C-alpha cells in the first residue's frame, strides 16, 4: 500500500472538545462513564453512559451528532494546516450509524402522544447527514461517502479514505466517525442485556458488559510524500488496513474470531510487516464476555503470547459506536507519537484468556514501531488499522 500520512487530528470525546482533553484523559486513565443526562433511563437495568460534557458548540438547529462532527472535523483540518483551496479537492469519508436520530426520536415520541407535523430535524435523521453538513460547511469537494459498518464504522471510514488517497482519487482526505447517544442505541443494548450497570471493565475476569458513549473523531490523511513536501507534521503513517466479514451471525462474532484474525493479518500484509513489528494493540475491547474472550484468542492467534501490550480505550470513554473506530485510531496514533500506551482503566483481575499485558489502570511508557487498532461490529464486520511511527 502507498504510505499514507496522518497529518491532522480532531476529537470531541467524553472528556470534552479537543485532542488535548482527550489525550490528557486517556493518559491519566480517567473513566468518563457517568449517570445518563440526555435520555430518560427510567426502568432500564443500566443507567450510565459516557456523554460529551458541557454542551456541544454549534447551531442548535443542527443535530447533536452533526455538531459533534463539525467540531472534530474543524480541529483536524486546522491541525493539518489544510487551506481553503486544498479543501476543494479533499475527500470526506464519515463512519456513522445513528445520524440525527436523537432529535428525530424526540419528534417521534411526541407524535406518539399527539398529532404533530414533521420537523426539519427529519432532514438530518440519516447517517449521511453528517457528511452533507461537514462537507458543505467546510467546503470539501472531493469524493464523499458515508459508511455504515455498525461498531466498526469509524475505522472503516479511515480505511476507505486511505484507499482513495493511495489510489490518487484525492490528494488528501478527511475521515472519521461520529455518533451521539440515542434512545434506540441505549434501549437496544439494554434489551440485549449487553450493558454493565457499572462502568465497563474490558478484559477483566468479572466483566459484565459494555458502557455506551458518544463522540466524534476525524483525521486528515494524505500521501506521505505530499505531506513531507509541504512540510506538514506527520503524526504517524496509516501503513495498512484489513477489512473482512465473518458471514457467520448477525450479532455474534465467529466463535474462533476467524474474521478478526483475517483482518489483522490483512493489515500486516498491506503494511508489509510481520507480527513482531507490532508492539501495541488498541483492542476493540467492549467488555462483553463474548467479545473480549474471542478477540483475545484472535490476537493470540496472530501475535502469539507474551510481550504484546493490549489496552481498551472503551474502559474510559465507553463504546462510542460509529465514532469508536476513529477515536481509537486517534488514541493509537497518539500512543505512537507520545511513546505512551493508554491503560485499560478499571481492570482488577485480567481474564486468563487475555494472555498478554493489558496495561491495567496506569499508562505505560513504550517506544513503539507500529501499533494496530481493532474495530468489530454487528454483521460480522472486522476492521484493523495498522499505524507506524512517523
Amino acid at each position, binding site marked *: 500500500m502507498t504510505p499514507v500520512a496522518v497529518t491532522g487530528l480532531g476529537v470531541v470525546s467524553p472528556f470534552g472538545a479537543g485532542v488535548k482533553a482527550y489525550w490528557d484523559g486517556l493518559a491519566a486513565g480517567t473513566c468518563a462513564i457517568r449517570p445518563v443526562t440526555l435520555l430518560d433511563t427510567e*426502568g*432500564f437495568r443500566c443507567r450510565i453512559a459516557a456523554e460529551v460534557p458541557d454542551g456541544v458548540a454549534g447551531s442548535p438547529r443542527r443535530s447533536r451528532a452533526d455538531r459533534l462532527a463539525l467540531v472534530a472535523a474543524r480541529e483536524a483540518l486546522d491541525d493539518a494546516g489544510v487551506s481553503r483551496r486544498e479543501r476543494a479537492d479533499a475527500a*470526506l469519508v464519515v463512519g*456513522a*450509524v445513528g445520524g440525527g436520530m436523537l432529535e428525530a*426520536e424526540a419528534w*417521534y*415520541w411526541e407524535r*406518539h402522544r399527539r398529532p404533530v*407535523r*414533521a420537523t*426539519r430535524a*427529519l*432532514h*438530518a435523521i*440519516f*447517517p*449521511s447527514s453528517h457528511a*452533507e*453538513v461537514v*462537507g*458543505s460547511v467546510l467546503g*470539501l*469537494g*472531493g*469524493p*464523499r*461517502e*458515508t*459508511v*455504515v*459498518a*455498525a461498531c466498526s464504522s469509524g475505522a*472503516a471510514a479511515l480505511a*476507505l479514505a486511505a*484507499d482513495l488517497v493511495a*489510489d490518487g*482519487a484525492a490528494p488528501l482526505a478527511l475521515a472519521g466517525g461520529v455518533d451521539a447517544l440515542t434512545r*434506540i442505541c441505549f*434501549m*437496544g443494548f*439494554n*434489551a*440485549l*442485556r449487553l450493558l454493565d450497570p457499572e462502568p465497563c471493565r474490558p478484559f477483566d475476569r468479572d466483566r459484565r458488559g459494555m458502557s455506551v458513549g458518544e463522540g466524534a473523531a476525524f483525521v486528515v490523511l494524505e500521501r506521505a510524500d505530499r505531506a513531507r513536501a509541504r512540510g506538514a507534521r506527520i503524526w504517524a503513517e496509516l501503513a495498512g488496513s484489513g*477489512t*473482512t*466479514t*465473518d*458471514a*457467520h*451471525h*448477525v450479532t455474534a462474532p465467529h466463535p474462533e474470531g476467524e*474474521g478478526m484474525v*483475517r483482518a489483522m493479518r490483512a493489515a500486516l500484509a498491506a503494511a508489509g510487516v510481520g507480527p513482531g513489528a507490532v508492539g501495541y494493540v488498541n483492542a476493540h475491547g467492549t467488555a462483553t464476555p463474548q467479545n473480549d474472550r474471542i478477540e483475545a484468542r484472535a490476537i493470540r492467534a496472530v501475535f502469539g503470547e507474551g510481550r504484546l501490550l493490549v489496552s481498551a480505550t472503551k474502559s474510559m470513554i465507553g463504546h462510542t459506536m460509529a465514532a469508536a473506530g476513529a477515536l481509537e485510531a486517534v488514541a493509537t496514533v497518539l500512543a505512537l507519537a507520545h511513546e505512551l500506551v493508554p491503560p485499560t482503566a478499571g481492570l482488577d483481575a485480567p481474564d486468563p484468556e487475555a494472555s498478554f499485558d493489558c496495561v491495567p489502570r496506569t499508562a505505560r511508557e513504550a517506544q513503539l514501531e507500529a501499533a494496530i487498532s481493532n474495530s468489530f*461490529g*454487528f*454483521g*460480522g*464486520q472486522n476492521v484493523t488499522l495498522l499505524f507506524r511511527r512517523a
Partner: protein
Amino acid sequence: MRRVAVTGVGVLTGAVTGGSAAVGAFLAAGAPGPRQVRPEALAARIDEAEARRLSRACQLTVGAARLALADAGLEPGRDLGLVVGTEFGDLRSTIEFVDGYLERGPVGLSPLLFPNTVMNTMAAATAIAVTAREVSLTLNAPTVAGELAVARAAALVRAGRAPAALAGGVDQLAPVLLEALAELGAGADARAEGAGFVVLEPLDAARARGARVLGEIAGAAWRALPARPYGVGRRTAAPRAIAAALAEAGVAPEAVGSVQLSAAGDALRDRWEQALVAAALGGGPPRAGAPAHLAGRHSGLAALAVAAAAADAAASGAPALVHALARGGTQVCLVVTGP
C-alpha cells in the same frame, strides 16, 4: 490496475424480477411497472428460515443478490466483496422496535429487532446468505446510494482489494417515512421498493472462467459539488465526477452515446442533473434514459441503470454513462462500455 467486467445482474422489484434477460426484456418494452414486490416473487428467492427470521428489507437484499450471482454463473461460497447502497435502511424495523417501547415500555423492546435498526443489517444478512467474507460495506446517501455502491465496488475490484464484488442497493418504503418526506416537501420523487445488484470481477478472471461479459465499468468517480445540505447547487457548477470518470476511462465527452439519469420527479434536482450532464458532454445532449420513470426510485435501481447502459453500449458501440446526483451535491458517474 485491473479492468472491471460486469458479469451478472439481479433485480427484485415490483416492475421486474430476474437476471439480465428479464431486465433486458423489461427495458426494451419500456412500460412502467408496479412499485411493490409481489409476495410470490420474494418467496421464491428465500428459504423458509429466512422468511421467518429476516426482515423484509433483508429478504429483498438476499433475493436480489442471489439473482445476480446466478446470472453471473457464480456459486455462493466463493469469496466475494459486498457493497450495499441504501437511502433509508431498514426503517420499518426501526419503527417497529421503537413502537414496542412506546406501547409497552422497556419490556416491549425486541432484542431480535434491534440489529435491524443499524443500516448494515441488509449487508450482514446477505453476506451470510451468499458467504461474502471479504470487505462488506453499507453506503448511505440520498438518491445516489446504489450508483455510489457500484462505483466504490468497481474501485475495490480495479485496485485488487476484492476478488469480485456484489454491488447495488436496496430500499423499502415505510408509511411514516413517506408522510414525513411529503410534509418536508421532498415527496415528489416517484419511489418504489426493491433491491438490485450487479456482479463485478476482473475482466481477465471473468474470461478465464468463461463467464459471459455484459460490459465493463471503464471509469467510476464520485465527487461532492457545492450545495447546501439537502439543497441543490448551481447549474454552472463544474460536473467533476463526470470529468473524472471519463478521464479514468480514457473516453472523450463527445464519444458518449447515451446516459442513464437518476431523474425521478424532484423537479429542482432533475433540472440540475440535466444541466450538469449537458455541460459535461457538450454539444447536443446524448440519448437519455431514466429507469426511475419505469420502476420507481430506490437504491437497487443502479443495477437496472448499469444493465441499460451496458446494453446500449453493446448495441451502439459507444460508451454509455450512468449518472446520479443527490440533493446536497453528491455526484456519481460510471462509464460503461460494451463487452
